[in-house]
């Protein structure tokens, strides 16, 4: 019998979202255990640089900001693919979340009254910061926003917020079992009972029974191989949710490419570089973005900037290098002091990794996989579809405030806000539920994991983990990238299916005791391939262009046919994902112009009223559990009209 733990709340993932859920549950007096692949402070949240959006309106260029303006920016950013009620919940809570983190010790940068020099749209301007706001939390400019809204601590925002959050976890005495990987969700009769996990220290299997289980394992960018993501972002939590056969993943085809991954190494340099006035230049050192996007220039949404950069490279205007074609990011004009204080991580990354001094030199960049808008489909409480007691928050979830494109600064904000909102619902649910412990269930799921492990030791050995992983990554990068088309995607489906079949022939050669890194990687691979397949299947089926999903053969956004969310399930014994669709949520502001990107759209024939009338029914049909507050009740209808000229 393996070691068995029991707890009220089990959180899988110790990044910001997971820890915030844990803290909320602990405040309710519940027992919480967090499982994490790595020590909590190593989580990828720590790598978020630029900041966290919240409509505080303290900075001079943020004047007049409010949650509704934030709502509009986020919705347009999502290309109307997001759930407007969830966006509303998010924008209303973001200022609270940020102030709360100030209370708990985050040293947010503050307003300094008097004249300040900024670079705005290519020009150096002097702006008078309000003395009355002196000492309040300030903000910087980010892409796709009408106001300066991104609160920050230099360019180490994620680090500061994560350390403050983990301090709270320590303060509340919340147990963290680090180097522990959840391999299977125990479930039966539509209820979740906890997980089977494997210790990455000694290789032993553990059983965790819980009243509620929260998946907060972040994104899965590593399936693209070339990604800004940390090496642990392999979609472990998403894969085990998909393995249940009943929980759907939402909008997996919505994959974000960040404009400024450095070349080589694919490490991110923050959007704050452009927010603070940096330029994108081509091989002639010509600033090309204003030609494509006269209004927003370098600060259109990420999907748009990445597309424009790729278009520009296709015209032959990229810079050739031994590491592939790239463009330049120029922050030299911001000056040494600014670069070495507010963009200090960027300075360090450039100096250490590519030997470029950004004070004097141009930084080689290209669009690089960065964020996963898709994830475990949950209702507005964070409760997973079809499986009571399973929750998800943060990048791992499709809550769905980002739709088909996330704005910079909205993910860090989401982790903390969703952690707060979902954490409350998790606590309420856990207080009502009994802890169900079943040794039959534990044995069944433990045996399944043991069988998987044994099969990997006994495999034919004709395939290697590293080899298949690379093939999978190459298919995604080449055929399911920024610009997509039916031929490539059809081909990608075929290739991925073959890779999936071949993954059965892996053999783990090393029987070394302990963590066994080869076994760890082999155990993850099949789940990663399944996630890759949900992306390719979703992208092939979606015959329109929306946000980051760009189809060369269907260039228009089609609100008539495709104002829907893709749901991908992987039924037991199936060999490929099964797709279904649901409405994106109650529409408050009907689909319209984003104000950047220049794409066409096909209007809805249906009225908003009749679209909205079907939302609840169709979402429930797809497995949406009843949220604490009825669907649509938190939307604040029509408020957006006040903010539209």
């Amino acid at each position, binding site marked *: 019998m393996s070691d068995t733990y029991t707890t009220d709340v089990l959180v899988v993932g110790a990044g910001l979202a997971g820890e915030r859920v844990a803290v909320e549950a602990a405040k309710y007096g519940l027992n919480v255990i967090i499982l994490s692949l*790595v*020590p*909590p*402070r*190593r*989580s*990828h949240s*720590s*790598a978020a640089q630029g900041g966290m959006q919240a409509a505080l309106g303290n900075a001079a260029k943020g004047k007049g900001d409010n949650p509704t303006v934030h709502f509009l920016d986020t919705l347009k950013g999502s290309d109307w693919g997001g759930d407007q009620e969830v966006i509303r919940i998010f924008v209303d809570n973001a200022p*609270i979340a940020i*102030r*709360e983190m*100030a*209370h*708990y*010790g985050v*040293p947010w*940068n*503050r*307003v*300094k009254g008097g004249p300040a020099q900024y670079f705005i749209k290519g020009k150096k301007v002097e702006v008078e910061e309000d003395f009355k706001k002196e000492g*309040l*939390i*300030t903000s910087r400019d980010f892409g796709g926003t009408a106001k300066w809204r991104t609160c920050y*601590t*230099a360019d*180490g925002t994620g*680090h*500061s917020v994560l*350390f403050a959050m983990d*301090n709270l976890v*320590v303060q509340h005495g919340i147990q963290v079992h*680090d*180097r522990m990987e959840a391999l299977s969700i125990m479930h039966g009769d539509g209820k979740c009972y906890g997980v089977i996990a494997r210790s990455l*220290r*000694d*290789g032993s299997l553990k059983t965790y029974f819980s009243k509620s289980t929260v998946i907060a394992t972040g994104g899965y960018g590593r399936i693209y191989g070339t990604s800004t993501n*940390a*090496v*642990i972002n392999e979609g472990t939590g998403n894969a085990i949710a998909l393995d249940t056969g009943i929980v759907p993943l939402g909008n997996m085809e919505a994959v974000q490419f960040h404009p400024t991954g450095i070349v*080589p*190494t694919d*490490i991110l340099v923050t959007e704050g570089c452009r927010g603070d006035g940096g330029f994108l230049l081509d091989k002639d050192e010509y600033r090309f973005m204003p030609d494509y996007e006269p209004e927003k220039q370098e600060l259109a949404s990420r999907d748009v900037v990445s597309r424009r950069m790729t278009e520009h490279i296709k015209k032959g205007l990229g810079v050739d290098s*031994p590491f592939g074609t790239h463009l330049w990011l120029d922050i030299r004009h911001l000056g040494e002091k600014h670069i070495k204080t507010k963009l200090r*991580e960027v300075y*360090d990354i450039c100096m250490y*990794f*590519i*030997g470029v001094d950004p004070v004097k030199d141009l930084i080689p960049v290209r669009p690089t996989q960065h964020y996963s808008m898709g994830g475990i489909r949950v209702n507005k409480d964070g409760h997973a579809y079809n499986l009571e007691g399973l929750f998800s928050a943060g990048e791992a979830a499709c809550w769905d405030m980002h739709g088909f494109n996330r704005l910079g600064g909205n993910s860090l904000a989401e982790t903390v806000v969703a952690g707060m909102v979902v954490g409350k619902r998790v606590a309420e649910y856990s207080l009502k539920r009994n802890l169900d412990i079943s040794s039959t269930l534990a044995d069944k799921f433990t045996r399944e994991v043991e069988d998987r492990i044994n099969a990997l030791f006994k495999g034919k050995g004709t395939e290697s983990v*590293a080899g298949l992983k690379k093939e999978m990554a190459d298919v995604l990068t080449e055929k399911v990238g920024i610009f997509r088309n039916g031929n490539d995607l059809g081909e990608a489906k075929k290739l991925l299916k073959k890779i999936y079949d071949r993954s059965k022939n892996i053999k*783990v*050669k*090393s029987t*070394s*005791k*302990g*963590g*066994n*890194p*080869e076994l760890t990687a082999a155990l993850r691979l099949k789940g990663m391939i399944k996630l890759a397949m949900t992306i390719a299947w979703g992208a092939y089926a979606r015959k329109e262009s929306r946000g980051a999903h760009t189809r060369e053969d269907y260039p228009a956004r089609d609100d008539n046919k495709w104002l829907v969310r893709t749901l991908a399930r992987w039924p037991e014994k199936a060999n490929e994902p099964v797709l279904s669709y649901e409405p994106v949520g109650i529409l408050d502001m009907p689909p319209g112009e984003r104000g950047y990107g220049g794409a066409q759209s096909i209007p809805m024939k249906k009225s908003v009223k009749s679209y909205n009338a079907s939302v609840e029914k169709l979402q429930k049909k797809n497995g949406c559990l009843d949220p604490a507050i009825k669907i649509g009740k938190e939307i604040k209808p029509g408020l957006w009209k006040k903010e539209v000229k």
Partner: protein
Amino acid sequence: MGRTLTFRIFRFNPYDEDSVSRIQEYQLEEVPRLNIFNALNLIRDDQDPTLMFDFVCRAGICGSCAMMINGRPTLACRTLTSDFSSVIELFPLPFFKLLGDLSVDTGVWFREAAERLESWIHTDEEFSVNETEKRMDNELANKIYESDRCIECGCCIAGCATANVYPDFLGAAGLNRIGRFMIDPRDERSNETWFELVSTYEGIFGCIGMMACEDVCPKSLPLLDTFAKVRRLMLGTGLSGKK
């Protein structure tokens, strides 16, 4: 033509009773801008799947990959092979519990340190949802951030003479954490409380001032300044007779 590099890597698996600690050699062709992160992954993918090491962000941000590289504790991800001769020796960080080969348990040590130091804002004030945040001077915010930048990689402790002979010593990372909370007005702990916490041999008076920590800190934290301030404050508190 690239060089052929020889990696001499410490091997030991504490979970295998038959494991013997040893140095194992691997050869690798050097490519431009090769760093230790890519080198170790190439070795593991192509030569030895059992090799254990830790990387997470691979961008010098998360602090996972500190190890001894040719005798010096540093972050492996941002160390280029071109900075060395063709023989590169890799050892795990000393001081911390060994989990296998180059992997050590910094996580549990830092969690325990955080518990000892009560590394959180101590305040009686409750957070109020409807109130505007308390004001703070931007210069002070920057100063707090300066100390808050510690990534707890463990290099300072691995390089510390005191820590290596006295395992209860809080090390530079621990003392820096104290310094960070001392200057934060949101933390209401008194000088007397700080005195109890750090005016000990495990704390600020255990430091013998060799400052290897400052030399090896990958984040260039101003450790000397911080220690000086903590020490001066604690001396003052001690001499004032309030203790």
